[in-house]
């Protein structure tokens, strides 16, 4: 049986578009961005990508791969006009499961950052799905995080409970430094 499927001719607007930040800031160490938008950083206490969210795209995917220099919690914050947004509007709801620990519910709201995952000199991946960061609306986001050596995994909804418009994102550790890459992709509208 032949099944017909209706498709739209999106041409160059199909799929995901790579986004190059307007600038990068590191708290220490080094950073760099190539023409494909891959941001590479090393020995950084924080890495901030400016000018990645605009009105061109409504929704974004961000892929972060990093290694910590020691035992540290990796956190994230939105940015606006080259500065972190530090208002108490970062919420986090979901679950945490480890290789040797049971499923645990996590629920916190009104924080000044998203505290995502602790890593101890091992590699972690952070996959963000961000909705409408550049719009003046309550933002509903999701993130999946995984620790390569401990097997810890988290799956969170990370709403941002204010209409503040964001144009960038910071990733930082509470102690020590991080090294890795960040890629930002925009979903064509």
């Amino acid at each position, binding site marked *: 049986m032949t099944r017909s499927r209706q498709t739209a001719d999106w041409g160059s607007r199909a799929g995901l578009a790579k986004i*190059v*930040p*307007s*600038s*990068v*800031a*590191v*708290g*220490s160490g*080094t*950073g*760099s*961005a*190539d*023409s494909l938008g891959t941001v590479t950083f090393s020995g950084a*206490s*924080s890495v*901030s990508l400016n000018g990645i969210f605009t009105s061109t795209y409504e929704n974004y995917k961000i892929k972060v791969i990093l290694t910590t220099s020691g035992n*540290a*919690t990796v*956190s994230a914050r939105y940015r606006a006009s080259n500065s972190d947004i530090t208002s108490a509007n970062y919420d986090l709801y979901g679950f945490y499961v480890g290789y040797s*620990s*049971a499923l*645990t519910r996590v629920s916190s709201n009104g924080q*000044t*950052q998203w*505290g995502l995952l*602790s890593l101890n000199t091992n590699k972690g991946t952070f996959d963000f799905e961000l909705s409408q960061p550049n719009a003046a609306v309550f933002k509903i986001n999701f993130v999946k995080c995984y620790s390569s050596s401990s097997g810890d995994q988290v799956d969170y909804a990370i709403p941002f409970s204010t209409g503040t418009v964001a144009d960038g994102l910071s990733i*930082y*550790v*509470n*102690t020590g430094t991080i090294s890795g890459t960040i890629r930002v992709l925009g979903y064509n509208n």
Partner: protein
Amino acid sequence: MPKEPIEITPAGSVVPVYLEEPTAEELAERQAEHEAAEAAKAAKEATRESALAKLAKLGLTEEELATLSV
């Protein structure tokens, strides 16, 4: 007081890169966040240890409990 960013753009970067060192207040705040996260982790572990101790008193292991259907 925030420090002025210093441009450190390396050869090969297609956008400017700046060094923005955190202030003492930001460092203290991050340390407090880290300690809070560690305390929460320790509390979860303590709860798990307590539950395992209770299971042991019942003569059950964690693996045996996992095989029980509710």
